[in-house]
């Protein structure tokens, strides 16, 4: 019984993913179906970044770099793998989907390793300093990807090339074109719902509370036996894993180009904005913000070039009107509880840090 309860939400994620594909998506045209995928990917990005910025309180602004690492790794595997298996890089449903799933998980793992590497300096840095490191990491990833060789497209060349050569043939500044379009609503929402189950379970468990304690007060957390370093790194690794998965979904989506510029710091800021707007630490807030901020530029398509101005205005007014984000740290299902009027914290006379 207990084990059924353990896995049933994950099974529910699969069922819901199919409902999204065959129940919800047919109600819309192709354009909105793509939008649905974009929303799903942004949900994965926002909810995963929320693990770092919201739960563990470490301000990272390099999330798109993890997305790029995962996307490129997964893209290289499906693209060059397809040539080896099928002889071309077209979509082959069935076997190809298995290849895509494997590539996506590998992409997630590669991004997770990158997350671990970036997580290590976070042991020593706080606040703005950490933000600068993550920003720098994003730029390093972007520049390295721009330096890669052109994509190979001849079957004979690809079969003759070594893995090392293929791993460097990622398209450089032009981007990695020609990837098969495996990303569907089912895949996107399978990962989105899985991440949501994980995030909610994390938030409501001792492990998740350990994350939160690091955000709240690091000194007190370690005095209570929380290994703050370990939890920060865990947050980074877990978030990077899902960013990598989102990267793979993005890479294999119709109508996107996987190129270094696309996944630069602009994209990182977009994700940060979603987390801040939703409320740092609120999972449902991140989901809602991801939906709103994906749709907003579409509704403002005529004013597309003013998008960033509107973003900025939105953020500024949010910070003035609701500095804690839409939901603060709470979840949508907790909102019925009236917030207590917060009194200014009383400090004892002569308190020392």
């Amino acid at each position: 019984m207990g084990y059924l309860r353990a896995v049933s939400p994950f099974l529910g994620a699969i069922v819901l993913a199919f409902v999204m594909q065959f129940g919800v998506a047919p109600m819309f045209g192709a354009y909105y179906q793509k939008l649905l995928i974009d929303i799903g990917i942004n949900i994965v990005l926002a909810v995963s970044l929320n693990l770092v910025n919201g739960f563990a309180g470490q301000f990272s602004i390099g999330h798109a770099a993890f997305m790029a690492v995962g996307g490129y790794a997964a893209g290289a595997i499906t693209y060059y793998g397809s040539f080896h298996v099928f002889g071309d890089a077209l979509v082959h449903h069935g076997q190809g989907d298995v290849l895509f799933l494997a590539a996506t998980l590998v992409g997630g793992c590669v991004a997770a390793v990158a997350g671990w590497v970036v997580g290590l300096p976070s042991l020593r840095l706080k606040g703005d300093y950490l933000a600068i490191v993550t920003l720098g990491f994003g730029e390093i990833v972007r520049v390295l990807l721009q330096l890669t060789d052109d994509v190979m497209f001849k079957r004979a060349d690809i079969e003759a090339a070594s893995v090392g050569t293929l791993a460097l043939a990622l398209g450089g500044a032009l981007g990695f074109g020609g990837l098969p379009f495996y990303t569907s609503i089912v895949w996107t929402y399978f990962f989105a719902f899985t991440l949501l189950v994980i995030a909610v379970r994390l938030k409501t468990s001792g492990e998740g509370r350990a994350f939160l304690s690091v955000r709240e007060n690091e000194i007190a957390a370690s005095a209570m036996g929380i290994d703050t370093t370990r939890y920060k790194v865990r947050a980074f690794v877990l978030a990077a894993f899902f960013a990598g998965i989102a990267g793979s979904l993005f890479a294999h989506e119709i109508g996107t180009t996987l190129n270094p510029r696309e996944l630069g710091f602009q994209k990182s800021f977009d994700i940060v904005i979603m987390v801040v707007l939703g409320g740092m630490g609120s999972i449902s807030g991140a989901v809602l913000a991801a939906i709103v901020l994906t749709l907003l530029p579409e509704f403002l398509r005529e004013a597309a070039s003013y998008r960033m101005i509107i973003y900025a205005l939105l953020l500024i007014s949010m910070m003035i009107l609701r500095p804690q984000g839409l939901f603060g740290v709470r979840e949508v299902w907790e909102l019925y509880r009236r917030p207590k009027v917060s009194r200014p914290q009383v400090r004892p006379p002569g308190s020392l840090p």
Partner: protein
Amino acid sequence: MSEPLLDVSGLSLAFGGLKAVTDFSLKLHKGELQALIGPNGAGKTTIFNLLTGVYRPQQGEVRLGGRLLNGLPTHKIAASGMARTFQNIRLFGDLTVLDNVRIACHLRARAGLFSALLRTPAHVAEEAAIREKAMALLEVFSLADRHAELSRNLPYGDQRRLEIARALGTEPKVLLLDEPAAGMNPQEKVALSELITLVRHRFGVTVLLIEHDMALVMKICERITVIDHGVTIASGSPLEVQGNPAVIEAYLGAPSAEGH
């Protein structure tokens, strides 16, 4: 007497040229309640920070139950059985009262990240046990009915008591209380001293207390160590310390040479 539970010897720390703590020694036996007093800036909190690994001692040893704690990170020292409260309250403000205590209880939890994500039966059972333990602790501190409130919304005295409850959540052998009565009114102080005595007997913890309120210290402590400018100037029973000229001098100043 038997081996002391907490054995501190020759502890020293200097910040550049400033000697914050010099050659501090203390023996705390199981079940004892000792106090550490001294004027403002004497180095009391620095000693707590040395004991809990926030600062590394430059000289000297800290042993808990015979185990050397020098150089261990704070969370490992907490795991070995030393818990503390903070002079300037450091609660997890945006979390509920219950969560504050549950986080402390997490130290003794066994189930890891993956069992949390999979919600294994072992994890579910442990979560229930932690909740029960935390609620029982809050009950002792009469905070149980406020368990769902954000801790920063608690009145000041409740926040001080929640800090003690949270520290006890780690199941410590030694509890370090850093000015638990600071900012409390006389009635609250009386209630607190009763609470400290109760906690000590009920949870079997050994307590080291930093406190300014002499009446409170004299009433509940067996032994007092007085420090000034990081140097131990007296140590003994409340009566001995009270009459010690060095202590009177530290608190009231030396009689001046001109004699006015």
